[in-house]
């Protein structure tokens, strides 16, 4: 299924009055969620930038049904909503819209449990690679080498691959997505919502103040993450793992743009030495090799 951008639904669910920063990547994602599931989704949003950008109560700049919930609780609250709808005969999709901290760190036990139960929840982790809402502290999704306020000389540990961990739970659908590719994200939300059970989408969502780049460059930074091979678009559906375009055309490393094109746009990587960049490149190569082998192993009949 290809999705033409000019044919996407026109109804707006992110409306004036929201309080996102200029160039917020997450808001682009939330717009796409509205296009795809605006009339079906009921959102649980844990403590995060997403709880702030709704604007000031009793009004809201996001025209969706939203329950704001404690930091670690979203996967469980969404399970409760989904079970209530099932018992009450309400048609709808319980959606979690959570940051990387709420998903990969403090909320991880609840996410893992919801996945293991295969609760009928569409869980979207918008990943801005740190605790941006509290002022750019490192999370387990912060990449190695990146500056944050709690890793002033660069993070020493690797980024946790949450999507692969969720895949290992045996859930029916896992995908990665990126705000620079809204049609791909839209299609993945639509596909996921057709499936009963636990669906997980890891959405890369650059943050201008947190990654230290100009707010006009959000989409370019996000696109470069894919084009340089830092972030790989893939989809696990029906027991099969496939790369999605344009990542599927970047298996051959020579097709990828040089890593430095991604790094140089962002102040959080400004301190990196050539050696560190080389090491980062090797780790990206390893990630590709692992994922491709994994995809091969997951192929039906393999």
């Amino acid at each position, binding site marked *: 299924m290809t999705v033409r951008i000019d044919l996407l639904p026109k109804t707006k669910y992110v409306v004036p009055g929201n309080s996102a920063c200029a160039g917020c990547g997450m808001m682009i994602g939330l717009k796409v969620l509205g296009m795809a599931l605006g009339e079906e989704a009921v959102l649980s949003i844990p403590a995060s930038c997403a709880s702030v950008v*709704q604007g000031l*109560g009793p009004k809201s700049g*996001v025209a969706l049904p939203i329950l704001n919930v404690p930091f670690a609780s979203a996967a469980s*609250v969404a399970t409760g909503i989904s*079970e209530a709808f099932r018992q009450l005969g309400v*048609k709808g*999709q319980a959606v979690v819209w959570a940051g990387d901290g709420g998903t990969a760190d403090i909320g991880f036990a609840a996410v893992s*449990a919801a996945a293991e139960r295969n609760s009928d929840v569409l869980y979207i982790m918008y990943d801005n690679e740190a605790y941006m809402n509290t002022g750019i502290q490192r999370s387990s999704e912060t990449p190695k080498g990146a500056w944050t306020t709690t890793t002033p000389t660069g993070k020493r540990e690797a980024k946790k691959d949450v999507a692969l961990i969720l895949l290992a739970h045996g859930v029916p659908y896992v995908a990665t997505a990126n705000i620079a590719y809204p049609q791909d994200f839209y299609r993945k939300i639509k596909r996921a919502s057709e499936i009963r059970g636990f669906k997980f989408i890891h959405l890369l969502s650059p943050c201008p103040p947190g990654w230290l780049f100009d707010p006009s460059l959000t989409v370019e930074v996000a696109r470069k993450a894919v084009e340089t091979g830092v972030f790989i678009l893939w989809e696990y559906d029906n027991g099969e793992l496939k790369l999605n375009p344009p990542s599927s055309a970047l298996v051959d490393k020579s097709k990828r743009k040089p890593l430095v094109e991604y790094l140089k746009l962002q102040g959080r990587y400004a301190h990196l030495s050539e050696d560190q960049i080389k090491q980062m490149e090797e780790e990206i190569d390893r990630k590709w090799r692992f994922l491709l082998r994994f995809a091969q192993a997951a192929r039906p009949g393999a």
Partner: protein
Amino acid sequence: MRTLAVLKTALTGNYAVAHAVKLAKPHVIAAYPITPQTTIVEKLSEFVAKGELKASFVNVESEFSALAVVYGAAMAGARAFTATSSHGLFYMYEMLWWAAGSRAPIVMAVATRTLGPPWNIHDEHNDILAIRDSGWAVAMASNVQEVLDLTIQAFKLAESAYIPVAVGLDGFVLSHTVETIELPPQEAVDEFLPPRRPDLPLRLRPGEPITMGNIPSDDRLHAEHLKNIYRASQEAKKLVKSIDAEYGKLVGREYGGMVEGFELEGARYAVVCMGAWCGDAKEAVRSLRREGVPVGLMRIRFVRPFPDEEVAELSGIDKVVVFDRDITPAGGILGREVASVLGRDKVVNVLAGLAGVDFKADEFRKAVKHAVEGEYADRVVLL
């Protein structure tokens, strides 16, 4: 009163909770095992598995998630139930406040248990009392029959006041002790407890934009919300009484609302206590009455909201002996609350039965006697 086809049966306190929940027809149940609560949810999962109860039973990875699941369900319009004890209740702490702040009409059973260290599964009231300021209504039953009746009443209270309700039953003393009780017929419970409104405290439905809990434009809005919860709690005292009376009419048992009075007529002294051991305390009161000591008893049924008005009725009493099955650095919790109504000079606060240590009727008798005869040097007495 009508004659009802009641079923007499022998149940533990935990099974009485399970039967009460089944009679209340919840949509969603979620729980995590902890002794002594576990057999409540084992029984409920069995009811669901056998198709005797049409509900979702959600197994979770923690008590925090148990409450989060029933919270989500309740906010989406479902009738929802969970149960826990002790450390499990404390693991829920953040969700407890969020649920109360959201006016989520949840019912939770708490089989009371002491807190570690050391690991100890026996009875004490510190766990349930620690949630007293979270915004939940907090009640304690005194026997297995009341466990059943109070649990059914709790759903009505939660769905009338839009305050979550915790129903306490003493761990092991009630949770694992079999008593012969009467089960009301389903039609009586159905009449007492109609299906809940799915549109309060809010209507959470696809395609209908609403936001619960985003940042307020003005802190005074939040402050007003907090005041409204206080007002609702005060209002809930009336509801506790009217719900108890209505239940009494339909089912034939009523308990006195916020408190139960016992032998208070002509009393110069009063015992105040809460929970299962009030049965032993009543025995002591009877025995003291036989000895000619003019003593009565007030059993606290609801500790939140607090029965200030009922406790104030003891102001003509010479000496009030408050028994706490809890301990804090400031003394007993009930002792301090009762003293806040009656003044500290009137109150002797006896802390006993801690960590599950047995405290028998005769020990109550001796303690009351010592207290009224002024033999205790301190206001807080550790037994």
